[in-house]
């Protein structure tokens, strides 16, 4: 009975000072929203990372030049196509290798014109990356050697040109002033977090080198290591071949670096964990600040309503009844903040998951947990004001001006 009465009184009191109450809950809203958004984003990012790991059928290593990656950068010892050929010719390990030449070009089709990431690769790129062709064909070794002007488009390139990717197959497109024929379209892979293969165009490596970008310098060399070798063994072999190719004497440092993809994802996981911890920390501080805000406003409320408290006591309200009334008001305030925070946090996460093409899933435990935690903040910070109210002397409180 008293509980029900207290809840309706609390809601009335909050409604009576709606603006003040909502402003008070802002810190609670921010705290809860960060937790919800972070839990959602964290789990989606984790899923994306896990997916990209399983996409790689075997260990993939990537070789980069030491300094500077783009064609603009002056680089004393860049990676060139010949380095990749040397790795292929070296028979110590049966690896599969594709160099990558990347660059941004203007893509024109009809009246549409967009800037797009173009990547020149060999025919084995598909199997190294674990990608698949949705429709049409991928390039062949013969296409590469013939430096054919053909292109395979990512699944969402068509949409950006205000048509469908399928409709582009067989059509001619203009890439940086060179005409290419679209021969195929990739299956949608979804963003991996740092690049989106769906928004790229693939062309033969040698076409890219000789006809589009006019350079032998590659941005990276991707190496698929068979399961029978450890990445360490493969790294030693790659190092040996490239040091020879680059004429690096004993004791001199490598002018290239080899990235282990899985190490990279480990780093990514660590970064995500650090980021989560940071956000949880911020959330904790906002909830603390929010709790103090709620305590403050409850103290104001107790003072403002001293005569009401006096009256309630005169009519027979016990210490416990008054305590409960104000405690419930504080908790209700925090729960409202918590629920608003869940809505806001889910909204933020929804927008990000749409943008990043992620699956939207918030565990129920996160929602339940953060609202419950908000309620506990209210309970903790509401105790002092509520005790202050409950301890008022009725005779004094009734005459309070």
């Amino acid at each position: 009975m008293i509980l029900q009465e207290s809840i309706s009184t609390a809601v009335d009191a909050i409604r009576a000072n709606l603006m003040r109450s909502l402003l008070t809950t802002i810190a609670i809203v921010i705290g809860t929203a960060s937790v919800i958004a972070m839990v959602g984003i964290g789990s989606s990012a984790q899923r994306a990372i896990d997916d990209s790991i399983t996409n790689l059928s075997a260990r993939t290593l990537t070789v980069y030049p030491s300094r500077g990656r783009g064609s603009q950068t002056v680089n004393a010892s860049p990676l060139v196509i010949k380095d990749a050929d040397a790795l292929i010719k070296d028979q110590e390990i049966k690896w599969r290798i594709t160099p990558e030449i990347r660059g941004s070009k203007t893509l024109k089709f009809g009246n549409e014109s967009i800037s797009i990431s173009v990547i020149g690769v060999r025919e084995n790129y598909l199997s190294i990356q674990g990608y698949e062709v949705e429709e049409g064909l991928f390039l062949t070794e013969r296409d590469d050697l013939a430096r054919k002007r053909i292109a395979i488009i990512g699944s969402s390139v068509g949409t950006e040109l205000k048509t469908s990717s399928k409709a582009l197959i067989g059509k001619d497109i203009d890439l940086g002033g060179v005409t290419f024929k679209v021969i195929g379209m990739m299956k949608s892979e979804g963003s991996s977090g740092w690049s989106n293969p769906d928004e790229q165009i693939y062309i033969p490596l040698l076409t890219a080198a000789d006809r589009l970008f006019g350079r032998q310098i590659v941005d990276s060399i991707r190496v698929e290591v068979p399961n029978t070798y450890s990445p360490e063994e493969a790294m030693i072999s790659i190092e040996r071949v490239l040091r020879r190719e680059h004429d690096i004497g004993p004791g001199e440092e490598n002018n290239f670096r080899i990235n282990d993809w899985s190490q990279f994802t480990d780093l990514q996981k660590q970064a995500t964990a650090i980021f989560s911890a940071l956000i949880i920390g911020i959330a904790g501080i906002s909830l603390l600040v929010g709790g103090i805000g709620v305590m403050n406003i409850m103290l104001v409320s107790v003072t403002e309503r001293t005569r009401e408290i006096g009256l309630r006591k005169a009519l027979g309200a016990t210490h416990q009844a008054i305590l409960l009334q104000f405690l419930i008001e504080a908790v209700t305030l925090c729960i409202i903040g918590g629920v608003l925070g869940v809505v806001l946090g889910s909204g933020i996460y929804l927008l990000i998951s749409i943008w990043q093409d992620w699956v939207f899933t918030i565990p129920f435990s996160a929602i339940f947990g953060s609202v419950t935690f908000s309620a506990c903040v209210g309970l903790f910070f509401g105790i002092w004001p509520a005790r202050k109210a409950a301890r008022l002397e009725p005779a004094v409180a009734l005459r309070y001006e």
Partner: protein
Amino acid sequence: MSIIAVEGVTKHYALGTQTVEALRGITFEIQKGEFIAIMGPSGSGKSTLMNIIGCLDSPTHGTYFLNNQEVSTLEGDELAGIRNKEIGFVFQNFHLLARNTALDNVMLPLKYAGVEKAEQLARAKAALSQVGLEDRMDHQPSELSGGQQQRVAIARALVNNPSILFADEPTGNLDSQTGHDVMQLFHNLHAAGQTIILITHENEVAEEAQRTIFIKDGLIESDSTKEVA
């Protein structure tokens, strides 16, 4: 049978380093069904006496029996229980909850008494009918006139069938005609057997009661009963 028996009641307050003796030894009895006025100038100890008889405060010394139960030794929630069951308060400035309807205001003491919801409603409606406000039950205080608000307060005071109806300057915030109507309501309740204690500093209001206790400097200066005409 005396409903109130006060004997040798004193009340001391600590005010800084000084001790203020607000009441210096009060003794009187009130019989069931009496209509009594307690008068006195401000600073006389009238309010302190009212707090003690109304169970809002405890005396420093002396005994107070209400309905043959000693209440001078009780404190906190025990006194809250006594106030809830035995005493109905009517205040000068009505003291209604602004955001609640007349009906909700009248139901409040029953909620603290732990009465069933259906019975709360029935008794609150009956009390509002008793003061002639059956058609104003869903109005909030701001939608009622001063006289109507005071009648809601009287209905709230009556809803628990208290032993004493306690009215502290009940007409102080009302114009004379409305004040007269409210006094008429008290007379009707008195005629129906209700014990009423009126706290006032106005002779005119005190005249309405059968008996007047005059307090001055913490002591009873006079206790006079009117001749019944």
